[in-house]
């Protein structure tokens, strides 16, 4: 079995240690470890994190292979330091049967760049009318535990209640895309001063908050596990904070772009900034950062949403919603959370690996960096400064809102069960 010695990396940003990988596991963590024939990675000044875990990735396969495939998407994930991603169910066909989730799971195994955990649809065809065969998806080879109609909201209160109750039988969780559909008909951007000026249909914060408020009450009532996707408003933070204070089983995620960008960018009418949920205000960004710092928001999830060039190279109203995010997530978190002093690197490990893995109940992911654990590891050079250039992306799509922007940090190595998927900043 191959051995790798990572020498002198600050483990979770703390003490500089040597980490010896033997085969698929971490064999030893300590000082002055003997290379003993192992390949040596000099990691002076770098940060060693547990492999990142994304709860919210759109890999687009099957159906939209023009924008991303499981192969290209997992390569993008590895580049960004991820060792596991949850693949959202809004594919064509929808991942609402055991057959489709097994197909995605198998494609993930074949790609080998990171683990792919399929998410199952809550309802047939994401239509919100009839429960999909949640049990069959759980019992399939994909062992689905996270269910979501992401892209659409499970807006019917009875269907949502039943879904929450039903998945208790196998420790499942419903990940809700909170968007009241009637309040967002024709919505194009955050409703506020900018939308009023630009004449774009308003997407009110209350359309998100009212669904979250209802859902936390439903989850409490039936004693189930609820996960709230991509929180985007200060009001949503308040509701989740309140639900957690009651001891209810509610978790939440925030995207990197909602930690950094605001609706002021929409003034350019450039659809690269068109996303669901929409970019909000400066006050929302501040509340989201604080909530991620204090743990009200459990994790960062990318909502990596690749789109082909033509779907963004058009007028705002005709453009698709979404941004790619896997390859820039860690840099945005370093920029918005670490360099602002809101979160240390141990906090980053918690919000980008430990907690998302725990929510998804992923075995072998989001584990501490210690002897005997699976060697899923990410090495980051925090001193790196560079300009984002989508031409270098591993993703098939280029719809990044950070093109040309300077962001800190770079993933130099990613290890998936001991095997390097990224070496010296390059995909293996």
């Amino acid at each position, binding site marked *: 079995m191959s051995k790798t010695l990572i020498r002198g990396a600050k483990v979770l940003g703390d003490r500089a240690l040597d980490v010896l990988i033997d085969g698929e596991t971490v064999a030893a963590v300590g000082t002055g470890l003997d290379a003993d024939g192992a390949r040596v990675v000099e990691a002076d000044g770098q940060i060693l994190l547990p492999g990142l875990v994304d709860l919210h990735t759109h890999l687009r396969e099957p159906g939209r292979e023009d924008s991303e495939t499981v192969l290209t998407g997992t390569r993008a994930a590895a580049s960004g330091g991820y060792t596991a991603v949850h693949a959202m169910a809004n594919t064509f066909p929808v991942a609402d049967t055991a057959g489709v989730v097994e197909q995605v799971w198998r494609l993930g195994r074949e790609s080998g760049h990171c683990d792919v955990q399929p998410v199952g649809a809550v309802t047939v065809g994401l239509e919100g009318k009839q429960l999909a065969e949640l049990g069959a998806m759980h019992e399939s080879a994909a062992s689905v535990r996270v269910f979501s109609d992401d892209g659409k909201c499970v807006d019917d209160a009875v269907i949502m209640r039943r879904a929450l109750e039903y998945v208790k039988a196998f420790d499942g969780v419903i990940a809700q895309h909170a968007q009241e559909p009637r309040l967002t008909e024709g919505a*194009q951007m955050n*409703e506020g001063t900018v939308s009023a*000026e*630009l*004449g774009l249909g308003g997407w009110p914060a209350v359309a998100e908050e009212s669904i979250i408020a209802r859902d936390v009450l439903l989850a409490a009532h039936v004693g189930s596990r609820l996960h709230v996707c991509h929180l985007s408003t200060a009001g949503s933070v308040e509701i989740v904070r309140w639900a957690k204070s009651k001891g209810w089983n509610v978790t939440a995620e925030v995207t990197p772009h909602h930690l950094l960008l605001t609706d002021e960018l929409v003034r350019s009418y450039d659809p690269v900034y068109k996303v669901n949920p929409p970019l909000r205000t400066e006050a929302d960004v501040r509340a989201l950062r604080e909530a991620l710092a204090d743990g009200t928001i459990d994790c960062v999830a990318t909502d990596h949403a690749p789109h082909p060039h033509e779907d963004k*190279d058009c*007028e705002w*109203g*005709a453009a698709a919603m979404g941004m790619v995010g896997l390859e820039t997530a860690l840099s945005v978190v370093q920029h918005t959370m670490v360099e602002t002093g809101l979160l240390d690197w141990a906090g980053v490990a918690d919000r980008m690996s430990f907690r998302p893995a725990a929510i998804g109940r992923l075995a072998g992911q989001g584990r501490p960096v210690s002897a005997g654990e699976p060697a899923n590891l990410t090495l980051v050079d925090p001193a790196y400064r560079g300009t984002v250039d989508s031409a270098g992306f591993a993703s098939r799509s280029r719809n990044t809102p950070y093109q040309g922007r300077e962001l800190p940090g770079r993933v130099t190595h990613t290890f998936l069960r001991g095997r390097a998927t990224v070496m010296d900043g390059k995909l293996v």
Partner: protein
Amino acid sequence: MPLFPGGNPRTSGHLISAADLTRDDAVRILDTAEEMARLADRPIKKLPALRGRTIVNLFFEDSTRTRISFEAAEKRLSADVINFAAKGSSVSKGESLKDTAQTLEAMGVDAVVIRHGASGAPYRLATSGWIDAAVVNAGDGTHQHPTQALLDAFTMRRRLIGPDAGLGRDLAGRRITIVGDILHSRVARSNVDLLNTLGAQVTLVAPPTLLPVGVEGWPCEVSYDLDAVLPKSDAVMMLRVQRERMNAAFFPTEREYSRRYGLDVQRMERMPEHAVVMHPGPMVRGMEITAEVADSGRCTVTEQVANGVSIRMAVLYLLLGGSEHAGGSGNTATGTAETAATTGTAARTEEK
């Protein structure tokens, strides 16, 4: 050369939003339009100013009124005119705005007058590098309709100050009330921007459902009470209210809307004697305005139509550098006005 319009370097050389016009830009356009209007009183209404220049009217939405107005303006300036009604053409079959733009670019057009259902489409066309031509926004979604705001301001200046007395002047201190569906109105947005730039005080009147969230940030007052505002208005602009809005619960019934926010003769009498009633058309008689008011001498609807041609002539003339063709006189408002008048004479001689 100074930027024109000068309010936003990103869109200089185009007319995308009334907010991009400085006070001096706006007054210059109004003054040039005044010269154009005088031309309309002559037997030969044509100027050779844009001879050899090609202008495309690219209409993704039906609007015969606006299209005809631009077309008349373009023809009076002797431009070659291409009408491209994108509805029902390749565009509705999925060809993108970008492809259409590049087709027009390949044809070598000098200006594109665009009407589009999506807010921001003209801005995209002007700023995304798809095309080099000057872009004139003829109405985009619920965003802007700058030539409408200019023709409204022109109408107000003529009525409230006078065609000659108004030259070189703005609308400082005038009180303008805009009533109706503000939420869905590009006319309201453009008018608030331009009237504010020209020094007027604007009050919007509408039921709260038809005002956008965020209107608090606009440079104007907001009222829910039409009767209270009318006596303090120099001009009252009634906006069209579509009956379908009722079905989306913006207001309960047509009857209730016209009772609370419609303009009838009794209400009109609350206005000061000199005050005018305006409407961008098309009117929904019996809804926001009664037939009696619409047909009264205080209503400027037909004048607005005539003024629209003058304003659009002025905008195209200034954007396409008409002065070069008309004798190269300067960029000041008076300079332009003089050359316009001179070439008017030349045109008459030539076409005899």
